[in-house]
């Protein structure tokens, strides 16, 4: 047993160096002023900083819109991909995942160029488009996985008991695929809140998201305020995860997976 546990040592060191230590550093920086004295000023500054607050609100709004859009496009896509009759080959799945093989920054830059070429004004519309384009696979894949593994006999049993195709979907397929939907939502929502590169390239910095502000602060050597903002974002995202985790257990009660 003892020998086994030593195998975990490298991972433990890795976690310590690259997860725990940075978090502690963020925490330390967040509660210090520029000269190293303990203070809550950085955090209170955020709550009195109207710009920061409105940017934060906008980030959440954009993230919700993007997640909703991804879900709207992603669920039907996953449903079609997982259906053997509608999609007899696995190749199409790869096609959907393929964009993930190209670096997200390059894709975003290319998208921005395309908009410029087409003469489309960069703004919130292009931002949402770019985000959806980048994050859609993260929504499709977990839902696809749940649907693909779902026992066909559930749908057949529902049909057998008198459910039409739409009733089968509403009363059986959809509820049973909720675990996948929740992972998809989390995998899209969380990174969208903190992203900054996409908003920079696709709105020419016209729209600033929360991630952008953090990045600007840090770039301008305002480490302490930047750290405080990161901490706030971390806490809020952490809260949403906790909340969703409960929900998730509720919805997958009985555990199809």
């Amino acid at each position, binding site marked *: 047993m003892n020998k086994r546990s030593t195998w975990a040592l490298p991972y433990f060191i890795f976690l310590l160096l690259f997860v725990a230590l940075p978090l502690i550093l963020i925490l330390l920086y967040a509660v210090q002023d520029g000269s190293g004295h303990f203070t809550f000023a950085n955090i209170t500054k955020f709550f009195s900083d109207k710009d920061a607050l409105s940017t934060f609100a906008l980030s959440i709004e954009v993230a919700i819109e993007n997640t909703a859009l991804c879900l709207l496009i992603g669920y039907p896509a996953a449903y079609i991909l997982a259906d053997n009759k509608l999609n007899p080959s696995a190749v199409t799945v790869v096609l959907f995942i393929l964009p993930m093989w190209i670096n997200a920054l390059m894709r975003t830059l290319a998208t921005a160029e395309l908009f410029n070429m087409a003469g489309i004004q960069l703004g919130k519309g292009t931002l949402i488009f770019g985000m959806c384009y980048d994050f859609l696979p993260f929504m499709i894949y977990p839902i696809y996985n749940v649907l693909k593994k779902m*026992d066909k006999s559930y749908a057949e049993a529902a049909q057998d008991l008198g459910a039409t195709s739409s009733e089968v979907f509403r009363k059986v397929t959809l509820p049973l695929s909720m675990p996948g939907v929740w992972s998809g939502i989390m995998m899209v929502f969380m990174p969208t809140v903190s992203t900054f590169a996409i908003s920079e390239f696709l709105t020419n910095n016209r729209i600033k998201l929360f991630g952008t502000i953090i990045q600007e602060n840090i770039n301008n050597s305002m480490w302490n305020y930047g750290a405080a903002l990161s901490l706030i974002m971390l806490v809020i995202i952490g809260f949403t995860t906790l909340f969703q985790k409960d929900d998730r257990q509720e919805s997958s009660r009985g555990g199809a997976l």
Partner: protein
Amino acid sequence: MDKDIINLRHISKSFGDNKVLDDINLNVRKGEFVTFLGPSGCGKTTLLRILAGFDNPDSGTVELDGKDISSLPPYKRPLNTVFQRYALFPHLDVYDNIAFGLKLKKVPEEEIAKRVKRVLKLVSMSDYEDRDVDSLSGGQQQRVAIARALINQPRVLLLDEPLSALDLKMRKDMQIELKEMHDKLGITFIYVTHDQEEALTLSDTIVVMNEGHVLQVGSPIDIYNEPQTAYVANFIGESNILDATMLGDLRVRFIDHDFDCVDKGFGTDVPVDVVVRPEDIYFTTKPEKCQFKATVTSLTFKGVHYEMWVKTDSGYELMIQDYDPYQVGTEVMLYIDPDDIQVMHKESLANVFEGEITGEGKVEFLGTQFECPTEGFAVGDTVRVEVPFDKVDLLDHDDAADLVGNVAGILFRGNYNQLTVKTEDKTNIRVDTCDIWDKNDYVGIKILPEDIHLFKVKAENE
């Protein structure tokens, strides 16, 4: 009671190249407990799925109460299914699972509650309404699945190997309960199983199936005592299946002895198959009763009875079941009652294939070129090719073989084995051999030129 509730007419179904059902015709009487019995892959589940509406037949019609329901989707058919793995909805509790069908039909809530209570009592699961289906044991899930189907008061209840996931003891209990439920409700049950004992226990009528065909339909007693083919005899219970010659009415010869029997009308000197159940061969100590002598070669205790293998004085091996053991090496005297000898027509004596003459001395069948004398035939002629069962050689390597296949079935026939070899293009070849092969063995098949017999096929009308 005697009115037909379901008529299947000329049902055929293929998945790709694989013909799963071939022209099935079947009538089910109202209130009957019917079992589709056969090995896995015989098409029984597909037939059930066609009844339920999950699969559509390529041709043929399904009639319910004389009305064609072939084109109705499953949700419009007044039939309900109990699935092999139950398929209870994991996101709903027991009550909501059972109420699922009634809620869809917008039955008032109070009536649903009343009916759920009643049906739960029927399956001995009262007070389980609020339980999660995952917290139930396999047997309990099974009961809920049955309740979920029965609450809709289906015209016919379809059960797809519902007990196969349960352990032996539980299975026996559920068999009795299912039978009681059927008697109480008067609903027609159609039950699919590969377990012959289960079929014999439960059914009013058994439909024995193999390779997409219905081999025999009858009551359990008929099927057991009067199997119509060697396959049925072998599949249902233990049996000694032997080559025999009908000497005339009421007289048959097998294992090199002559026996009285109760069958007539087969003709004289006609080759037939004979089935003798192992419990129908009796030991005797009176020489005047003895029909043949044998030596016991093995003895196994089976709980209620002993199972013995004997080698007859003429060299055949027979299985005997008896309450009294005879030690290995004992010389015994045996007799068989005329009643217990079941005589059957031989299905065929040779493999028959369709072939084509592809050249001088060359014929193609089974997707392979064979050499054989082709006098009297022209290149391009379509011919009927016959190869006797005992003229097919099996090899354990494929370099000298004409084609390859897998042993799909073995039938011991007293002094040789009759194998069914499935070739790569899914054709069955019968092979009689004294060699020992195991099921699923990969074999090379070789046929000598002089054993290939060609016959003219009448020219098709153009």
